[in-house]
């Protein structure tokens, strides 16, 4: 049971990194990124391939962040030319392109067979609870650092300007500020965070295949952000924890509804998550922590 809770905690913290990144992009800056999973996948595969090639973990993580951020650059530039809703379509399409590329480029990614045997973190602590506890601890630290950075950023003049862009981009230009530069930077920053989350994921799961990177992941992150409260960093924290309670907690719902089979239960779980989202939007549209949007 402890091992299970640690594992759930690790996944929750990985989602938290993703949600904090999306919240920076959408919650604070208004960029509709429906391709979160693409940068998550790029981070995961980058770090996995590098470590399988003999790299140590830490530089592999750093490169994963950088690669995810660099890939975000051209997408960010595109977003300058597109209005909000088109950016949503482009990013969603991009995430599917990334997934299909992973599927097809077998020489690099082993396609649908996947990449097995990705090195775990903290191997020296042996296989088992201690290594995973250490992973959990590092993830907590990374999340705390990300939260601290966000809280600081939002209060800075830089953060004020990105929120102004979210509220009215035309007015931002009218006061002589360049929304383009900041939108690209924010897109890269949030994507770098997704790349970091991907690296953690790769070395925790130790096996990667393209079907782990469906758009569903993106929408889980969106759900976490909305439930928690868009435009609030504490909301991203609360939201990703609540999401995990729903995703994992609904596993145990089968104990109360025994007539449902294991296979059917998977669908019931998704239905429960959907129901939760609907109830949240009706009874608490501003999210758990309140929203500034």
């Amino acid at each position, binding site marked *: 049971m402890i091992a299970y809770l640690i594992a759930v905690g690790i996944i929750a913290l990985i989602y938290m990194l993703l949600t904090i990144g999306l919240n920076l992009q959408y919650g604070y800056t208004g960029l509709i990124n429906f391709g979160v999973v693409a940068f998550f996948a790029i981070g995961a595969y980058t770090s996995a391939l590098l470590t399988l090639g003999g790299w140590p973990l830490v530089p592999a993580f750093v490169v994963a962040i950088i690669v995810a951020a660099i890939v975000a650059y051209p997408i960010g530039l595109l977003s300058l030319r597109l209005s909000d809703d088109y950016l949503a379509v482009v990013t969603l399409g991009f995430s599917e392109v990334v997934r299909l590329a992973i599927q097809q480029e077998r020489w690099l990614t082993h396609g649908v067979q996947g990449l097995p045997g990705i090195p775990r973190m903290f191997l020296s602590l042996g296989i088992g609870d201690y290594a995973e506890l250490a992973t959990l601890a590092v993830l907590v630290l990374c999340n705390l650092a990300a939260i601290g*950075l966000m809280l*600081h*950023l939002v209060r*800075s*003049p*830089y*953060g*004020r*300007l990105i*929120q*102004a862009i*979210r*509220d*009215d981009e*035309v*007015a931002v*230009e*009218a*006061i*002589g*500020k*360049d929304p383009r530069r*900041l939108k690209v*930077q924010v897109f890269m*920053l949030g994507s770098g965070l997704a790349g970091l989350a991907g690296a953690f994921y790769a070395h925790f799961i130790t096996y990667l295949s393209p079907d782990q990177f469906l758009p569903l992941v993106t929408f889980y992150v969106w759900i976490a952000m909305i439930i928690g409260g868009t*435009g609030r960093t504490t909301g991203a924290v609360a939201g990703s924890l609540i999401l995990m309670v729903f995703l994992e907690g609904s596993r145990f719902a089968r104990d109360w509804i025994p007539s449902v089979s294991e296979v059917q239960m998977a669908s019931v779980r998704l239905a429960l998550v959907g129901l939760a989202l609907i109830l949240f939007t009706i009874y608490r549209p501003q999210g758990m922590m309140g929203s*500034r*949007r």
Partner: protein
Amino acid sequence: MTALLAAVGVCKSFDGFKVLDDVSFAVPERGLTGIVGTNGAGKSTLFAVVSGQLDADGGRVSFADADITGLRPMRRARLGLGRTFQVPREFAHLTVRENFLVAARREYGETLGSVFFGWGRVQREERTLRDRADGWIEFLNLKKVTDKPAGTLSGGQKKLLELGRMLMTEPKCILLDEPFAGVNPVLVEEISTRIRELNNSHGIAFVIIEHHLEALKALVQHLYVMDQGRVIADGEAAAVLAEPRVLEAYMGGVI
């Protein structure tokens, strides 16, 4: 007399329909200029072209001895040509003070690097700008709403906020699009007074689109009348408004 802001032969069509047809106007340094005309005469389109939101199909726009035709709105604002909008575009989720601060000219505090490094420098910059913002907030009588989200202000207060935000950019000239629309008579008087003060003591030129003719007549030195995309008359305000063809076009000859 050299013009601070001038448009020469500006044309703009939407789907073949001429919204601006060879429009020229000039605003002197420290000038107070009004533009009137019926709805659809092309006034707001003219502002959009002059401030860079729309590209003109033909003609030139110059400002402070530079040709600014084709510059992005951001660049024009940096040169000192500001504007407000007919429907206020406040940053709704930022407080009034934040709205002012975000508009301030600054080099360092809005770079990504400043988030990570040089926090002391950012704080010093902030203190100076805060004093300036609070000064304008007081000047515009927005003190009691300083810390309120701008989205919660009344229509008149939003107009003042937009004007104040523009002042933070240290402009030479401000284009005001219907500053008196939907504003109660007391506030109209107050806004007029503020505009006069800014013009007198800060030397800021204003170009004002307005339907409120009485207030405008009392405020501006020079008036342009537009009709169907053309300037049909211009000159000293009271004299222009008395011209028969202006009465004919603008008021359908009823007055």
